[in-house]
C-alpha cells in the first residue's frame, strides 16, 4: 500500500513537471487588467469583461478593424423596409464547447436572458427589442419596437449562450422566478459559449485561464494562441517583472508614463498606442451642490490645463473635443472645445450661486486606485481649482468600490476620473452610455444628468435609420452636451500596451504602427485568433539572459 502511494506521488510529480515545462513552451498569451471581470455575457460591460466574452462567445455579426460588421454566426440577413424587422440566417454546424449544436433558439434565449437580467450591455437592446423568435432551427427574427439605426453594430454585443447548458446549471432559488438565478452563479466561473476559446479555470480575483476550442467552426491559424490567461493585477512592479521574465505577453493600459518608458528598454518589448475610441472624463455630479451649477462646472472646464494632461501626463494623447472621441464615426469636429482661460473661468464662477461661499462647498474628486496616472490628473485639477479658490479633496478609491458607490446619487461623489469606451463603433453608443438616463447608476455615468430633453434627442438620433441624418443628429447632441458641460472632457486617449514584439505578432499593434485604424469596439483588439505566438523565439530571449 505504502509503495503504491509513493509511486503514485512520484508519477504525479513527473506529470506535473512535464506539464509545467510543456505549459512554458506552449503558445500562451498572458495579459493583465484590473479585476473584477465578469464572463457572464448578461453582466459583462467593462474592459476586461468585454475582452473575455469576445473570446469565449460568438456573435451573429463580427466587428472589423475598419468599424464595419461582417457575417459571423449569421451567414446573411434581411432588413424590412420600415427598419423594424431583421431576419438572420444562421450558419449550420456551429458547435458549443460541450459539443451541442448552436441553433436559433439559443439566440432567442440569449437575448431574453440579457433583457431579463438587465445588466451589462442589456441597456442597448432593452428600449428597442419587441420580440425575438426562432422561425426554424437556423432562422431567427428580431422585431424592433422602433427603428434603431446602429442595430447591426449593436449586435456585436449579443453573445450567444447554450440554452440547454445554462438551464442545466440553474440554481432554483433565484430572483428570476421559474428561471431561478438564470445560471448567474455558474456562469460567473464557467462559459456556455461557442467562441474560439473556452474556460479552463476561472479564479475570482486572480485569473481567467482559457484554452483553444478544438472544434471551432472557423479554422484558426496554427500560430494563434493555444491558450490565454488574463491576470487580474495592474500593480506596476508586478507587471514589469512579469514582462521582463517573459511571463507576460501584453500589459494592461493603466500604467504610468514612467512604466512605458522603462519597459520599452527591455529587449523585444515594444509599446503600442491604440486609439480605441476611449475618452477620459472627469465626470461631475449634476445633482449635488456645488457641481449642480452649470457655471460652476464651466468655471472648472476653463481652469483645467488640458495641454499638461495631453502632452505631459499622457504623452501622445489628444485633448478631447466634446464627449465623443475623434476617431468614432459620428464625431462632431466643429463642437466647442474648452481651453484653459482663467479670466473666463473667474467670470463663469462669479455667475454661479456658490461664488461667495466656496469655503462651504469643497469638492470631492475620486481617482481609481489601480491607475497611478490618474493621481497626476487629480492633483492637476486640484491645483487648477485652487487658483479659482475652489477646494478639491483628492480621494483614492479602488475600482470595485467606485462601482459600488456610484450606484445611488447619494453615495456618488462630486467628481470621478474615468475612462469610457464606446460599446459599438458609433457616436451614438458613447452618447447613450454616457448621458442617457438609463445609464445612471453605472460607472459610465456618475453625472446623474437625467435630462429628459437630452434623452429624447438621443433616442431620436439612434432611431434614425438613414446614416447621414443620424450623424447630423449626433453632431447636434454633442453641441448640446458641450454647452451643458456635465463633465470635463479631458483627452481622447490611446491605450498604451507594452507587449512582447519579438515573439508575438499582434494585429492591432501592427495596424496602429502603420497608422491604420484599430478596432473601435471595446475588447476586440484583444481578439486572440488575431494574435500569433512564436514560443521558440521566446526561448531564444530567455536563453540570452
Amino acid at each position, binding site marked *: 500500500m505504502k509503495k503504491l502511494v509513493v509511486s503514485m506521488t512520484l508519477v504525479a510529480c513527473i506529470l506535473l513537471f512535464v506539464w509545467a515545462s510543456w505549459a512554458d513552451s506552449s503558445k500562451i498569451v498572458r495579459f493583465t487588467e484590473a479585476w473584477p471581470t465578469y464572463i457572464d455575457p448578461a453582466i459583462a460591460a467593462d474592459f476586461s469583461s468585454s475582452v473575455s466574452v469576445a473570446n469565449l462567445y460568438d456573435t451573429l455579426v463580427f466587428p472589423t478593424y475598419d468599424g464595419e460588421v461582417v457575417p459571423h454566426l449569421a451567414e446573411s440577413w434581411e432588413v424590412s423596409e420600415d427598419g423594424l424587422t431583421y431576419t438572420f440566417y444562421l450558419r449550420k454546424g456551429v458547435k458549443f464547447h460541450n459539443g451541442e449544436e448552436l441553433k436559433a433558439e439559443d439566440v432567442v434565449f440569449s437575448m431574453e436572458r440579457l433583457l431579463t437580467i438587465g445588466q451589462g450591455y442589456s441597456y442597448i437592446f432593452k428600449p428597442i427589442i419587441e420580440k425575438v423568435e426562432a422561425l426554424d432551427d437556423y432562422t431567427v427574427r428580431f422585431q424592433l419596437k422602433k427603428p434603431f439605426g446602429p442595430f447591426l453594430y449593436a449586435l456585436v454585443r449579443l453573445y450567444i449562450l447554450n440554452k440547454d447548458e445554462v438551464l442545466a446549471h440553474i440554481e432554483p432559488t433565484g430572483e428570476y422566478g421559474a428561471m431561478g438565478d438564470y445560471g448567474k452563479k455558474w456562469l460567473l466561473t464557467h462559459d456556455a459559449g461557442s467562441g474560439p476559446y473556452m474556460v479552463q479555470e476561472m479564479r475570482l480575483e486572480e485569473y481567467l485561464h482559457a484554452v483553444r476550442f478544438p472544434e471551432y467552426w472557423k479554422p484558426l491559424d496554427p500560430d494563434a494562441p493555444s491558450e490565454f490567461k488574463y491576470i487580474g493585477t495592474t500593480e506596476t*512592479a508586478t507587471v514589469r517583472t512579469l514582462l521582463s521574465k517573459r511571463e507576460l505577453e501584453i500589459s494592461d493600459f493603466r500604467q504610468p508614463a*514612467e512604466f512605458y518608458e522603462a519597459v520599452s528598454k527591455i529587449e523585444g518589448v515594444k509599446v503600442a498606442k491604440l486609439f480605441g475610441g476611449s475618452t477620459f472624463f472627469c465626470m461631475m455630479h449634476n445633482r449635488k451642490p456645488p457641481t449642480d451649477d452649470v457655471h460652476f462646472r464651466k468655471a472648472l472646464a476653463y481652469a483645467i490645463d488640458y495641454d499638461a494632461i495631453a502632452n505631459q*501626463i499622457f504623452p501622445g494623447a489628444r485633448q478631447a473635443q466634446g464627449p465623443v472621441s475623434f476617431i468614432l464615426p459620428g464625431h462632431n469636429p466643429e463642437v466647442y472645445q474648452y481651453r484653459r482661460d482663467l479670466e473666463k473661468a473667474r467670470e463663469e464662477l462669479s455667475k454661479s450661486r456658490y461664488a461667495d461661499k466656496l469655503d462651504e462647498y469643497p469638492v470631492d474628486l475620486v481617482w481609481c486606485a489601480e491607475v497611478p496616472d490618474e493621481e*497626476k490628473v487629480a*492633483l492637476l485639477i486640484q491645483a487648477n481649482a485652487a487658483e479659482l479658490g475652489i477646494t478639491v479633496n483628492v480621494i483614492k478609491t479602488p475600482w470595485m468600490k467606485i462601482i459600488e458607490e456610484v450606484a445611488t446619487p447619494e453615495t456618488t461623489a462630486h467628481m470621478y476620473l474615468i475612462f469610457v469606451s464606446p460599446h459599438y463603433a458609433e457616436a451614438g453608443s458613447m452618447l447613450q452610455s454616457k448621458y442617457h438616463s438609463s445609464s445612471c447608476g453605472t460607472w459610465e455615468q456618475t453625472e446623474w444628468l437625467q435630462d429628459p430633453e437630452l434623452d429624447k434627442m438621443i433616442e431620436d438620433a439612434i432611431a434614425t435609420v438613414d446614416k447621414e441624418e443620424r450623424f447630423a443628429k449626433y453632431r447636434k447632441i454633442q453641441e448640446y452636451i458641450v454647452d451643458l458641460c456635465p463633465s470635463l472632457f479631458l483627452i481622447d486617449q490611446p491605450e498604451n500596451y507594452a507587449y512582447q514584439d519579438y515573439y508575438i505578432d499582434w494585429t492591432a499593434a501592427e495596424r496602429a504602427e502603420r497608422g491604420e485604424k484599430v478596432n473601435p469596439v471595446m475588447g476586440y483588439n484583444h481578439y486572440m485568433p488575431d494574435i500569433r505566438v512564436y514560443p521558440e523565439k521566446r526561448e531564444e530571449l530567455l536563453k540570452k539572459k
Partner: protein
Amino acid sequence: MRRTRLGRWWYKFSRNPLSVVGLVIVAFIVFCAIFAPWVAPYPEHAGPYVNYGEANKPPSLTHPFGTDVFGRDVLSRVFFAFRSSLLMGVVVLAIVVPVGVTLGLLAGYFKESWIDILIMRITDIFLSVPPLILALAITSVLKPNLTNAMIAVSVMWWPWYTRLVYGMATSLRNEYFVQSAELIGASKFHILFREILPNCVSTILTKMTLDMGWVILIGAALSFVGLGEQPPKPALGTMVADGAKYLPEYWWISVFPGLAIMLIVLGFNLLGDGIGDLFSLEEA
C-alpha cells in the same frame, strides 16, 4: 545653584557622544519643521501644485533631492512632511501618556480590587490585538486623514503606558513613604500624583523619547498605505509609497523621504538613550 545642576546634567548627558548626535538631529528636524516655509526652497510645492514639465528630475543644485512625478521639489516636501510627522508624535504622546499613566496608577495602587481587574483586563484586550492591524482597522473605518491616524495610533498606544506604570505603582505602593502618607490620612489624589507619580517620571520620560520615534514610524506606515495625511499635503510614508512605483529609475523620489524617516527615528532613539542614561546615573 540651578545652573550648576543643569551643568551637571549636561556633563552626564554629553559623556555619550551619541546622545549629543541624537540631540542635534532632533533639534535640526524640529527647526526644519517649524521654519519649513522659510527653509524649504519651494514652499508652494507642499500645497496644490503640479508642474509636469519639471517631473522626475534627478537631484541637482536647483532640486537637491530631485523632483517627484508631479514635478514637485522632494526636499521642500520632506521639510513640510516633518511637520505632520512631529505633530503626530507630539499629539499622540500628549493623549496617550496622561491617559495611560493615570490608568496605570489607579490599577497599580488599587491592586487586586475590581478597579485593577477592570482596567488591566481592558488593557490586555488592547494589547492582544497586533498594534498596526488595530490602527489599520480604525483608520479604514474612519475617513483617512491625519487626525484619524492620530486617534488610531493613540488607541493602540496607551496600554503600554498603563502596563509600565502599573508595574511600578504596584511595587511603590508598599514603600514606606506611601504607607506613611496613608497613615497621616493623605488623600488618594495626593498619594497617586504626589507620592507615586514623581517616582515614575524618569522612566516615563525615557519611554516617551524612545516612543516618539516609534510613533512617527507607525504614522509613516499608516500614510504608506494611504491612511494618513491626504494629498497634496506631504507625508513621509506617502512619499515613499508614491516613489516605490518608479524604482529603480527614479530612486530619489522614495529614497530621500525614506532616509528622512530613518533620521527621525534614529535621532529620537539616540536622544532617548541619552535621557535614559541621565536618569540612571542620577539614581546611581
